[in-house]
């Protein structure tokens, strides 16, 4: 059974559905712990006061925020916990919005909301909300406080379960307008040739076909292999970065690409 990261209630109008939050994705990375090489024993991190050369117990640690002028303002965990703009155990649905209006770059982490308790009342309220959201192109918008930080969230439906996604706030996205977009539009002939290349290199999306090469390399290293031979190493082969394809050669290069894609 997955670990519950949070439990509370989802509030829709005056209906409260008790729910539990679990992550919709699992971390499958190969994890490492720091060890002391000579004796192989685990490393412990100890917190020391930088002034006094002594270890500091957890209760004596506060949070310091540095102002622009360098002044350090210290807050206790209690003060921070108290600075909650709203209930910390309730996700209030504030609005319903069209999913297509949300910039995908705003989405952060995916979770699933599970009903807490299997009484008929809980299940029915949960199911009602899931059915109503699922039959629309909309998602619910609300907020949740996780680990002392408030998140804007959407609640949609995935495989019949309520799916919550935390979001970034709008000021956490950089404007695309600042980025160099390459300038002039290509000619119709070049665009058509490029579209032909894209089409010739097209495939259905099948995520299972792509290996997590990073994980595989580390797993092999842990298993004792010095070097992973059958995982393609990007170090080899392309030490030389190719030059930009210039506008003048573009048609020839696109034709060559198309031939290659069709042959391959």
């Amino acid at each position, binding site marked *: 059974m997955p670990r519950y990261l949070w439990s509370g*209630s989802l509030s829709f*109008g*005056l209906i*409260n559905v*008790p729910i539990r939050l*679990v992550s*919709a994705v699992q971390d*499958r990375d190969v*994890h*490492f*712990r720091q060890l002391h090489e000579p004796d192989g024993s685990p490393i412990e991190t100890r917190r*020391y*006061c*930088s002034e006094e050369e002594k270890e500091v117990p957890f209760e004596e640690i*506060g*949070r310091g925020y540095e102002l622009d002028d360098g002044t*350090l303002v*210290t*807050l206790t965990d209690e003060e921070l*916990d108290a600075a*909650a703009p*709203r*209930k*910390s*155990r309730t996700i209030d649905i504030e609005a319903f919005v069209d999913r297509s209006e949300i*910039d*995908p770059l*705003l*989405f952060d982490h995916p979770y699933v909301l599970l*009903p*807490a308790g299997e009484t008929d*009342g809980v299940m029915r309220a949960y*199911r*009602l909300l899931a059915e109503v959201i699922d039959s629309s192109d909309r998602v619910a918008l609300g907020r949740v406080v996780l680990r002392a*930080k408030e998140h804007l969230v959407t609640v949609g439906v995935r*495989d019949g*379960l309520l799916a919550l996604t935390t979001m970034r*706030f709008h000021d*956490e*996205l*950089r404007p695309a307008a*600042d*980025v160099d*977009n*390459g300038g*002039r539009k*290509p000619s119709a002939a*070049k*665009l058509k040739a490029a*579209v032909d*290349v894209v089409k010739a290199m097209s495939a259905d999306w099948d995520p299972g076909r*792509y290996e997590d*090469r990073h994980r595989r390399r*580390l797993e092999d*290293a842990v298993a004792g292999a010095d070097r992973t031979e059958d995982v393609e190493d990007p170090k080899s082969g*392309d030490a030389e970065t*190719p*030059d*930009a*394809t210039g506008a003048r050669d573009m048609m020839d290069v696109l034709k060559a690409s198309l031939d290659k894609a069709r042959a391959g």
Partner: protein
Amino acid sequence: MPRSLLNATIVFGEVSVPVKLHTAQTSQSISFKEIHLEDGAKIEHRRFCAEEDKEVPYEEIAKGHEVADGKYAVLTQEQLAAATPGGSKTIAVEEFVPVDDIDPILHDRAYHLGAGKDAGAAYRLLHDALAKTKRAGIGYFVFHDRERLAAIRAQDGILVLQTLRAADAVVDLDTLKPDAADDARAPTAKERKMAEQLTEALHEPFVAADHTDEHRELVLKLIEAKAAGEDVELPEVEEQDAPDDLAAALEASLADREHSGRRRRASPTKKPAAAAKKRRRSPSSGGKARKSKGS
């Protein structure tokens, strides 16, 4: 022009497109330093050997992957470096897939790609071809010593690189479904209708800038007040009760909605008659305890 994190080259077919990688998403979370409350001095993290009770210099640290309880497969920093890819700066597009078919649950981090040196024409050509075909280029991408799968798509007039989670990172939702899910009585037509009316009443256009980080603002205010030596009054918030008669609650919600008009922040003083009658607290909500220890 924003600073770039990396210069790389996208290769599709025989075409090379130099790009600059820029941050697209930046956390504005308030970050704190650990402070010793007694004297206000900063806290340092020091590495100690658990066995010998002595501080360990960085050179003596190895990485261990736990293979069994307390048993580690040890990798030296050299072995670890050998297992991580070098600085490949080429992103070879293997294929182009329909951009809408990529499940957003796989989205990890996103970066803006800007046109790199001499790339103007090739960059714009790739962008326009992706926009026209509604496809994304899939390839592997090396950043910070780690190879990741990435999708390159056209968005907002530029190219965006989205790193993707492995397919097996997604939790199998079937394993999470509560057993009682299918046995529960389906909502009645009346309940559905009222719920739909309520979602309709709460429907609004999504304007990202309307949703600010109120928690961040409140913490910054608290910091300012403390810096000025003022006392700070923090709002008291109350938790709500668990659910009740579904139809009655829906009816009350709709009525509540009609009376209060636009955008209502659920206030703790408003409670449906049904809820007041039959007070019940969710067993999982930890009762009234709203204090959650910060991380």
